[in-house]
């Protein structure tokens, strides 16, 4: 392309700054969101992987069991085996920190075994601390990240909680090998067992095999020594199990970014399409002057590519900024709670940055493709004369639309691929495509129906709709896509929120809930504590709730064992089966929906659950809905659990009050009895409110993307009408000659905008409902393994639709304003 042509094409971008800016913004936003999500998760996963490697050290195999630990006699048996060169026992505890918010990961380690297996975890005593410090009870060694986060230096005291008791640990040095991103503490294993009241228990053993011993062989021979519920894993497998947990979440965020990018491409398409329509004469002239078809096409594609490149580069910069902001505000897991205790650092990654910039270019080129092809196809002689001829091909495409709908129906039946609902996402794409393809047909059909209006303005607007549906379609398609996505998300989130609220009501039937720490951390309630609470005035009954994390097999991530009072129907949010079932030979267990999906279990099956080092057989009596544990949960009655497992500790305590008792007074009494730094008491209402708040926060990113999509849709309408209005200056001039006032022409434009938007919104809402169904039934079920009851927020959607139509009318009116500013005579003369 010659320099002159290059100037000609690229300069055209400058001639329509608003449209160019919007296209740029959309592409930049899509690129930025996608890149930010990837950067954040890469950094978090990187740090997470580093943490796992740090813990695994040079081990060849890891012995992992329930969170509560396994008998440390296993260590003696394994370390004595000839296959094992070095064995390092660990007791890992999430220590709750009284008076502080979070918890600290504390590793009780045998410092004599660390050098051979996990050298990076070796504690280094601070100056002046006795050299046996690393063996002494009452001491802890903090990694740099933990030191910084807790604001503690050697010599300071860290309070940790075990049960409802507070203990003081003196910070006695560091763990320099842990690196900058890992917040953890190391202490002596015996001291940790005693402090956290885990006598005789370990949570993991890392093994380095003797030279020449094959890993698989050792795995087989050592597995025979393991009690039920304890698994021997290769470090990579353990890492993969955990990384797998966050995969669905990451993919979902990535999909949202892809949608933003797609919207950007669409915006490029709509502005380019209209720009082409407007520049028909210019192109025809160029062709007449000897420009080849291919040259014209290349020129237009270059325009798109330039837009894409600029947007892409801007997006890359913005993406890094967004990621940095997210690290500062919500941490490395975007508020989803997958990577606690990690402090990932943002780095510039040239490869993803390049890839995302290229995606921007691709979006620009893709958006220009059809307009470029159309422009290249025009016949110079005709285009030179008939300046106004619609260049847009907007014939109804019912066949294509139905094909897409059919494809969506088929795709939504397919299973997930590697835990990711690929087919579900494809189904969503097909539904969107079907909606966009159906829009011309729907517009034509609606135009026929509307032909009966009487008012002049109405008939003019309708004539516009009927005569030139192509332009309306372009403006409308952006609306369709963005409304469909927004409506789908709204329906999904609404369904989810209502289902969650209902679920919380079922899971939290009591009046007050008392907790020593989150179930993963070191606080717990023993029988004395439970009895003390039960004896408080105003308390009618208490029901302990116990959470344990157990391993059902070596292939899948651990699941939660939930023990609570389960006696009557309604004690669990069942979706299948019953609570009160005729007695069987086996005790009953109820599994969460994730267990059905992940472990292929069903009501009536037998389930073996490791408890206290033995396998206990249960009968699956039903399936319940669980929004808290996507890796799966097994619920059993507390009395059965205590009888079989001998574990009488509790994590939470459900408190039922006597009639007339004041919840606040009872809560205060409980806190006074047990210590305000070590227990928390909340009313059921508070727990629900907090849960919903967390829910809303985790959908924050979604809301933001939704808003972006709608804004882009609206911007699409504005640019379309701005461009259309410019092209229709002659028509407006004619109308002025016929006696229309400027105000009337403005109203005409507003009406046209409203009509186009209304069609888009209507089709978008219909498509949105379909997408919502796929999101609820396919994407959520396959990603997170939970179901929900569909619930359409009709009022909200209606308001949303009305506002959108009104905004579109306003946008069209404003967009046309400057086209109407010219004197009518000039406008009519212009093109002759």
């Amino acid at each position, binding site marked *: 392309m010659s320099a002159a042509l290059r100037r000609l094409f690229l300069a055209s971008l400058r001639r329509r700054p608003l449209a160019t800016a919007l296209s740029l913004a959309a592409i930049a936003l899509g690129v930025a969101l996608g890149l930010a999500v990837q950067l954040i998760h890469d950094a978090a996963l990187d740090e997470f992987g580093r943490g796992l490697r740090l813990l695994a050290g040079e081990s060849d195999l890891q012995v992992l069991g329930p969170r509560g630990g396994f008998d440390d006699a296993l260590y003696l048996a394994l370390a004595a085996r000839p296959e094992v060169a070095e064995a390092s026992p660990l007791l890992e505890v999430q220590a709750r920190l009284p008076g502080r918010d979070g918890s600290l990961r504390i590793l009780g380690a045998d410092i004599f075994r*660390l050098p051979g297996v996990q050298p*990076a975890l*070796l504690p280094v005593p601070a100056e002046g601390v006795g*050299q046996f410090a690393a*063996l002494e*009870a009452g001491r802890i060694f903090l990694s740099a990240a933990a030191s910084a986060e807790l604001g503690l230096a050697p010599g300071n005291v860290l309070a940790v909680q075990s049960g409802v008791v507070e203990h003081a640990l003196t910070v006695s040095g560091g763990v320099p090998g842990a690196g900058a991103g890992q917040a953890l503490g190391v202490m002596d294993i*015996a001291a940790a067992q*005693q402090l956290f009241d885990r006598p005789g228990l370990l949570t993991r053993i890392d093994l380095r095999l003797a030279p020449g011993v094959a890993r698989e062989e050792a795995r087989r021979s050592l597995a025979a020594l393991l009690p039920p519920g304890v698994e021997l894993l290769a470090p990579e497998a353990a890492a993969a199990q955990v990384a797998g947990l966050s995969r669905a979440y990451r993919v979902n965020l990535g999909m949202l970014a892809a949608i933003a990018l797609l919207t950007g491409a669409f915006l490029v398409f709509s502005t380019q399409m209209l720009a082409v329509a407007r520049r028909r004469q210019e192109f025809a002239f160029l062709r007449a002057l000897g420009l080849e078809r291919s040259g014209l096409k290349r020129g237009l594609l270059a325009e798109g590519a330039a837009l894409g490149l600029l947007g892409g580069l801007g997006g890359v910069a913005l993406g890094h900024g967004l990621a940095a902001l997210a690290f500062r505000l919500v941490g490395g897991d975007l508020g989803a709670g997958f990577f606690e205790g990690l402090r990932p650092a943002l780095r510039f990654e040239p490869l993803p940055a390049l890839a995302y910039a290229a995606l921007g270019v691709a979006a620009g080129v893709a958006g220009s493709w059809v307009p470029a092809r159309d422009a290249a196809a025009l016949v110079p002689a005709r285009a030179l004369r008939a300046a106004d001829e619609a260049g847009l091909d907007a014939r109804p495409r019912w066949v294509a639309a139905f094909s897409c709908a059919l494809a969506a129906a088929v795709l939504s039946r397919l299973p997930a691929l590697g835990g990711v609902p690929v087919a579900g996402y494809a189904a969503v794409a097909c539904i969107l495509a079907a909606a966009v393809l159906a829009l011309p047909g729907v517009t034509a059909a609606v135009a026929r129906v509307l032909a009966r209006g009487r008012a002049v303005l109405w008939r003019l607007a309708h004539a516009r709709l009927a005569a030139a549906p192509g332009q309306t379609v372009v403006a409308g398609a952006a609306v369709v896509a963005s409304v469909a996505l927004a409506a789908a998300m709204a329906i999904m989130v609404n369904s989810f929120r209502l289902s969650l609220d209902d679920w919380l009501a079922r899971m939290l039937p009591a009046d007050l809930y008392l907790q020593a720490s989150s179930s993963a951390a070191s606080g717990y309630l023993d029988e004395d504590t439970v009895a003390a609470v039960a004896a408080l005035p105003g308390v009618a009954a208490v029901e302990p709730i116990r959470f344990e994390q157990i391993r059902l097999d070596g292939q899948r991530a651990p699941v939660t064992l939930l023990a609570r009072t389960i006696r009557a129907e309604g004690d669990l949010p069942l979706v299948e089966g019953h609570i009160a079932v005729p007695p069987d030979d086996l005790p009953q267990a109820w599994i969460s929906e994730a267990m059905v999906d992940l472990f292929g279990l069903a009501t009536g099956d037998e389930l073996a659950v490791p408890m206290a080092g033995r396998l206990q057989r249960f009968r699956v009596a039903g399936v319940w809905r669980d929004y808290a544990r996507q890796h799966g949960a097994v619920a059993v009655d507390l009395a059965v659990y205590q009888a079989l497992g001998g574990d009488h500790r509790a994590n939470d305590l459900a408190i039922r009050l006597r009639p007339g008792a004041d919840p606040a007074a009872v809560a205060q009494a409980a806190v006074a009895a047990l210590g305000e730094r070590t227990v928390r008491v909340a009313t059921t209402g508070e727990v629900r409110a907090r849960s919903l708040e967390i829910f809303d926060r985790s959908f924050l990113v979604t809301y933001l993307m939704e808003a972006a999509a709608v804004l882009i849709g609206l911007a699409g309408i504005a640019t379309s009408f701005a461009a259309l209005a410019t092209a229709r200056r002659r028509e407006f001039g004619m109308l002025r000659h016929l006696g229309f006032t400027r105000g009337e022409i403005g109203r005409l434009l507003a009406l046209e905008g409203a009509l186009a938007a209304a069609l888009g919104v209507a089709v978008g809402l219909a498509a949105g409902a379909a997408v919502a169904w796929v999101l609820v039934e396919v994407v959520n079920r396959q990603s997170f393994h939970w179901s929900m009851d569909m619930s359409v927020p009709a009022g909200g959607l209606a308001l949303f639709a009305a506002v959108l139509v009104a905004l579109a009318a306003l946008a069209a009116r404003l967009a046309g304003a400057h086209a109407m500013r010219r004197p009518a005579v000039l406008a009519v003369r212009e093109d002759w």
Partner: protein
Amino acid sequence: MAARWIRRLAAVACAAFALLAGGTFADELPADYPPVLPGRAIEFPADTGAHPAFRTEWWYVTGWLADGEGIERGFQITFFRVRTRIGEGNPSRFAPRQLVLAHAAVADPKAGRLLHAERAARALPPLVGFETGRTHAWVGDWSIAWEGDHYLARAAGEDFAFDLRFDPTAAPMLNGEAGFSRKDADPRHASHYYSRPQLAARGTLRVDGQDREVSGRAWLDHEWSSELMPEGVRGWDWLGINLHDGGALMAFRMRDEQGEPRWAGGTLRAADGSQRSLAPQELRFTPLRRWRSSRTGADYAVTWRLELNPAGAAPRTLEIQPLMDDQELDSRRSTGAVYWEGAVRLLEGGREIGRGYLEMTGYAERLRM
């Protein structure tokens, strides 16, 4: 990387050495470490086992071995037991109440330096531990044990391994006053100490990746104490020699910060089994030839003149000559200790009258690290 983490272990294990040396915690003298008192009779075999109440204890075997080709090498294996007084009320099996550390080395003139390895762990039977009532201490597959009429010891490092049996050919030798061995003018600094000289050694030794049948003479020391090294002592020189005539000689001296002798002692056993203790003034070490380690910069006397002046007997002038100069054990990368511990010959009038081991500590830095 490896060097760094090993240095970190040093912080731990060298603390154990500090306890072995005893000086570090002198100011917080623990009431419940039993004192070493004179007059306590040493019973065999009961006292060959561990004495866990005392702060430190070691079993230390050294000797010369010859293989089928007549090549001679030195070896040593030591098991230390340390009572930490940490976690004694903790029921955990991991409670670090007692630590077991072990050193092993082979002096191979062909290598020109010591081949050595270390182990350190908390006592955790059956993986790591010690027995009372009979000599038996072990860390993983390293062990020493009294089997009723002989000892067995085994150890393996990266570049050596041995599996040896020791048969006593002479009675145990009680050092000091019937096994009460003073280390200082202040009698609080003392140990219970006996030796088993003239052990007939045989077994297998692996060096250069090749197992060799070996045999020779060895010496076992067993010593336990709560407070060994007084403040102001920088190190010691120790000698244990199996005399060719069937007798034995043990001699040591404690040096102060200036390198001047501060205390000395020894035991001389004649061929007929009669023995006498040597008082501080009855023996004198004089350095002859020195050797400087290029690794640590430490300067060791590798040949010595040892003058014995037993009251009522003829004075003797002996000379100590090393199997090779470089028998420095540089474990700064693990336990942090640097000392010279090597096979030596004892000469009298130019004639070799015995063979054994010489240990020189505190030349690189004070043995408390």
